[in-house]
């Protein structure tokens, strides 16, 4: 966003393409069948989780390795409210969102003071601790899991409901990221990521900003968890508090490019489609291939697809300016 004049000039074109993408994805479910609707819905969900994680990892530079805890919290809040208290889905979803955000907000003050590894390990600890508690207590169904009421309405309606639910959530999370990236919050976070002390003496309320970023991330993740719970209809703590949920989102963020608006979405589409098409054929080595992809990304693509893109563009532009004005640096 640094070259605002150029950006503004090309803005309409990218808007058109983005709108086209949204429209295509919006009408797509009428042309594909159940399974592919489900695949795309999971894809949207992954993209949402990656985008939410991006706020914390990409912008604020905090390695929230256990961000999946909010996914599980959202899922279980919805499940408990719907089955034990007879709530309907939407109020339960809103409550899940608020609960996840509140937990992040309250935990954020002490935990976000931790830097680097300490924060990463603390989030893993929180994830595991919450999972163990959910497994132990009775109201959540514990280790026996919990069954949610089935979606009322036939299978087509159900498929469309969750497809559009996740799709809208994805659009919202991208919009939020766009808004944050261009707001004081975004600039503050990026400053915190590189020079926290300098950011602080320039008037950035660093703790508040970090806590806000984490809470927004948690809120989005919580809604995703809530939708997923209602979609899957059966939860076990191990399903929804799996540390792999965060790890996959991490890989998507890194693959797409941290601290970019569309990077995590592209990373998610790329990884999930790859998984769906190619390596789901070799299930025995599925995990190993994911591990290999991680190693390869870190070795050869440390700034992600978007980073590579930017580097290429930069080199491109440099070559151009060098040609036109040989005197410049």
């Amino acid at each position, binding site marked *: 966003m640094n070259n605002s004049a150029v950006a503004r000039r090309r803005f309409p074109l990218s808007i058109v393409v983005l709108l086209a993408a949204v429209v295509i994805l919006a009408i797509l479910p009428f042309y594909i069948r159940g399974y592919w609707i489900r695949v795309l819905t999971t894809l949207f969900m992954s993209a949402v989780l990656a985008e939410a994680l991006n706020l914390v990892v990409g912008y604020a530079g905090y390695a929230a390795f256990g961000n999946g805890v909010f996914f599980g919290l959202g899922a279980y809040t919805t499940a408990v409210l719907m089955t034990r208290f007879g709530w309907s889905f939407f109020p339960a979803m809103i409550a899940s969102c608020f609960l996840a955000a509140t937990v992040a907000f309250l935990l954020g003050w002490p935990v976000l003071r931790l830097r680097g590894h300490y924060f990463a390990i603390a989030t893993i600890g929180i994830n595991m601790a919450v999972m163990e508690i959910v497994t132990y207590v009775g109201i959540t169904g514990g280790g026996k899991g919990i069954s949610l009421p089935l979606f009322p309405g036939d299978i087509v309606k159900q498929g469309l409901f969750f497809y559009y639910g996740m799709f809208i959530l994805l659009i919202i999370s991208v919009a939020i990221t766009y808004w944050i990236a261009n707001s*004081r919050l975004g600039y503050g976070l990026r400053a915190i990521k590189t*020079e926290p002390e*300098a950011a*602080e*003496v*320039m008037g950035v309320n660093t703790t508040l900003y970090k806590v806000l970023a984490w809470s927004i991330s948690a809120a989005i993740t919580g809604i995703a968890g809530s939708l997923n719970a209602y979609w899957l209809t059966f939860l076990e703590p191990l399903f929804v508090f799996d540390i792999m949920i965060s790890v996959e989102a991490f890989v998507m963020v890194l693959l797409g490019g941290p601290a970019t608006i569309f990077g995590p979405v592209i990373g998610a589409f790329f990884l999930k489609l790859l998984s769906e098409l190619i390596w789901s054929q070799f299930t025995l080595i599925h995990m190993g291939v994911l591990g290999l992809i991680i190693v390869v990304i870190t070795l050869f693509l440390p700034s992600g697809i978007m980073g590579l893109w930017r580097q290429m563009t930069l080199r491109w532009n440099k070559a151009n300016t060098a040609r036109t004005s040989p005197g410049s*640096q």
Partner: protein
Amino acid sequence: MALLEVKNVSRSFGGVQAVNNVSFEVNEGEIVGLIGPNGAGKTTMMNLISGLIKVNEGEIRFQGARLTGLKPHAIAHKGIARTFQIVKPFQGMTVRENVMMGALFRSDLRGLKGSAVKNIVDEALELLELDRRAEAPVEELNLAQRKHLELARAMAMGPKLLLLDEVMAGLNLKEIERLMELVRKLNARGVTILVIEHVMKAVMGLSKRVLVMHHGSLIAQGPPEVITQDPKVIEAYLGKRRHKGLHKEAR
């Protein structure tokens, strides 16, 4: 009433007394120099004023209001800006964005969109002679430019008091001259300045009044010409051995 009042401030790390019962004042419109040998507690003093480190004892007041106990961002909002000895540019942003960081979080301005921010940024860039490098990634700047950037960022905050932490360190003579000129210019615009400096010449040339710290204590203050003759100061810098003068040693 003085702009900044430091009253009996102490701070220790473990058993080490980094700042010991220091009191001084900075008046509006002054350029005050704070000097002292390595490890004298100058940077700690600066961190105490900007709130990055908490005061153990004593208090610091700004425009009559207590700063002690406030968070750094709140202190910044009151109109105190600072630079860092080891420059801390925000990587991954352009020069303009770096300077914009100063303007964005001012308590007297809200939001990004206002042309006010743009004007402030343009002005700061021009003032510190960075306007031609405005769109460059910050990684491309050389050290002198980075020092200018630190100042530009601080100026964009619209400060009443500017704390400069060894801005001249690592620069060559020509660059120092240019930077001194700029500091005077900033002062002329009404900004009060507290300069921490190891480079003697710069401080002597800039300040009408100099504070000297040694082993965490304030050992002398006064006009530069008096200070350089003060035996305590000479001893602090050079140990027991007598020396002809400070200018030469400090180059």
